[in-house]
């Protein structure tokens, strides 16, 4: 755990260095696409009010100067599978973005959706001796959280204090400066597979870049797609990506749960490909142009040419009605949404004061999905688009870029995490105290 603490702190320092330099890159490693945005930080409030962008989430302090997207290679279920291919894809995206920005970036903040994220709610209690609560006390109470057994090959990605309890008052955002005897904290810990982070680190290093931060994709899309009220009152963000559908639950402005369903838009495409016996590329095109989840009588008459290049006339001139296509798409989408429902139920989503569900991500663009989702997930469903960010090209402003935009906000003003506080002194290894004592003895 100490090693993780050190590496996360090092990443925070690199992020600070990148902000000092003013340029930082964002890489969202998805299953379908890899997006790279280059941000320039010009100081707070520099772009406030321009182009209708207001400073609600700190997005007024930067602007996007380079954006590039490339087809993801070697990524499955949001995890890096073929290192070489992924490295090439990252290189392509970063180079194109650099070319657009005409600036060289050295620091990247990356996100990925897979790696089986698992959420833990931790609790820590500390008896205070004197005076108001300070940074030191917070560090101590965070260190006092009893850590569950994470399992082998797991690593903490986020460890955010979400709630503080002072004596009998709960729901404190920031107890610093207040006086009390007993300080408690609720911390949300998100762990992922270590191997996924290491693979990502290796790929980024092979591209001559330095990793200045890692975020989980559900967290990133949550902070970009949810509006402030939803984050305050409780909402779930469902990011329907290519290979995974990730969901994150926010309450009291903090993420309290994150989970991934290992199904996404690519499964829909492969269903079409298998069901209609067309190549994957054709299936993707048909899905994008004619896809839907609610069939009407009109759709029986709308015939879709499947096309083909085989040279077999019979095979190349096949047509299907749109109803048939919807008949292929709908069960898979229903399956995904039901899986999401099951995860939400497991997380106890129904106990939140508000149960707003926001659909975002590339697969949420299927027409009619909000009706289907309302039937499965509950009535309060809306389609979410990411927050507007200064300088973002309109091609990169769709729901498919929710996690990339969220990562920009994460880069601009990250939430306090466990490693943002100093290590409490009593947690230092005893050896160093012994060394100090020895030095004292020798010198006095």
């Amino acid at each position, binding site marked *: 755990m100490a090693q993780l603490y050190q590496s996360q702190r090092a990443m925070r320092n690199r992020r600070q260095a990148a902000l000092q330099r003013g340029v930082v890159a964002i890489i969202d490693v998805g299953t379908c696409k890899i997006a790279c945005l280059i941000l320039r930080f010009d100081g707070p409030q520099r772009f406030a009010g321009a182009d209708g962008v207001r400073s609600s989430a700190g997005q007024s302090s930067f602007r996007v100067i380079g954006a590039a997207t490339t087809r993801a290679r070697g990524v499955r279920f949001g995890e890096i599978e073929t290192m070489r291919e992924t490295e090439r894809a990252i290189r*392509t995206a970063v180079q194109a973005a*650099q*070319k657009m920005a005409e*600036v060289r970036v050295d620091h990247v903040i990356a996100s990925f959706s897979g790696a089986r994220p698992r959420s833990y709610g931790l609790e820590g209690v500390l008896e205070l001796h004197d005076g108001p609560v300070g940074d030191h006390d917070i560090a101590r109470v965070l260190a006092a959280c009893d850590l569950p057994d994470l399992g082998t090959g797991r690593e903490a990605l986020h460890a955010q204090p979400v709630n503080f309890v002072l004596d009998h008052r709960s729901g404190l955002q920031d107890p610093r400066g207040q006086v009390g005897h007993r300080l408690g904290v609720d911390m949300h810990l998100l762990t992922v597979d270590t191997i996924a982070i290491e693979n990502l680190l290796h790929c980024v290093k092979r591209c*001559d870049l330095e990793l200045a931060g890692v975020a989980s994709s559900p967290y990133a899309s949550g902070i970009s797609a949810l509006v402030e009220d939803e984050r305050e009152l409780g909402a779930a963000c469902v990011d329907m990506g290519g290979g995974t559908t990730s969901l994150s639950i926010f309450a009291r402005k903090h993420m309290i749960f994150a989970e991934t369903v290992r199904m996404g838009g690519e499964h829909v495409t492969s269903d079409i490909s298998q069901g209609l016996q067309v190549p994957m*590329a054709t299936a993707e095109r048909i899905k994008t142009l004619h896809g839907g989840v609610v069939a009407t009588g009109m759709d029986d008459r709308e015939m879709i040419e499947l096309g083909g*290049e*085989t*040279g077999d006339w019979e095979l190349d001139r096949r047509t299907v009605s749109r109803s048939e296509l919807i008949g292929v798409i709908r069960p898979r989408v229903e399956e995904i949404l039901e899986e999401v429902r099951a995860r939400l139920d497991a997380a106890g989503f129904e106990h939140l004061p508000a149960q707003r569900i926001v659909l975002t991500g590339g697969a949420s663009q299927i027409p009619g999905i909000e009706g289907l989702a309302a039937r499965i997930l509950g009535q309060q469903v809306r389609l979410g688009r990411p927050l507007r960010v200064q300088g973002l090209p309109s091609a990169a402003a769709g729901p498919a870029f929710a996690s990339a935009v969220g990562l920009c906000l994460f880069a601009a003003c990250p939430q306090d995490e466990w490693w943002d506080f100093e290590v409490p002194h009593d947690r230092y290894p005893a050896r160093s105290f012994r060394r100090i004592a020895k030095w004292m003895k020798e010198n006095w």
Partner: protein
Amino acid sequence: MRPLNHPVSGHRLEPPLTRPVPPPRDPAPSRIAYRLHRLWLTPLVRILLRRVLPVAALVAGLLAFVATPENITRAHEGLTELRRSIEQRPEFMVVALRIEDASPELAEDIRELTSLTFPVSSFDLDLPHLRAEIEGLDAVGRADLVIRSGGILEIRIDERVPVAIWRHREAVELVDVEGRRVQGLSETGGLPPLPLIVGDGADRAVAEALALIDVAARWEDRIAGLVRMGERRWDLVLASGQRILLPEREAVAALEYVIALDGAHDLLNRDFKAIDLRNSARPTLRLSPEALEKLHLMRGPGRGDDS
């Protein structure tokens, strides 16, 4: 109707009408290309390559060129040759000399002095120097040098006009109104019909001398010349050796006075040595010894000290 499975002789299998499906386009920069691109985006490298390197290459090339002396001489020769070829163009060549408003002897003198060999490039002509040289001639008051179209060097001369003969210790010369020497006179040559002035400093008062000669025009045949005394006043010397000593100032008025006396009393035919008008309040007549003797006799004894 042909059976479907019946092989057709001589009919080969046709290739499919469609082209083979190309592999999906998958552009990705190589690692080298990626690194070079990043290097190119580094500001320092960019400045080095775009600003510093060209200047450095230029300077290095120049230094390498200058380092060998043959290069410099060759470049110098080339430049000189180029300059020569431009100067020698017919537009810039001067082919003739024309001297205007000069007497034939003077023109000959000028031709000898300049000693130009035509054709000559106008770049090679040093007109100010030439002008100074020509104006150095005594007979030339002013010279204007112009290169006219057609390659003609025109020298317009303003000749000095001799107005008097000046005899001084060294030589006898002709001088103009300003007292500048125009021409020397040889011993053997005859004198031109000009008034004679004598003495040091006479050349600085030629104008006054001319005015005096003008006033004394009726004595023209009797005047021998004017002598400058002490570089400040004139003596009018008559052919008979008599002198009229004129004052320093208002010499003309004094001379007019003498002329008036001469007209009234026939003064010049009297026997005297000099008329002294230096003090205008007291004009004095210096008689010759014989005249003085005669005066003494006329006046009788006892009054000999009265002059």
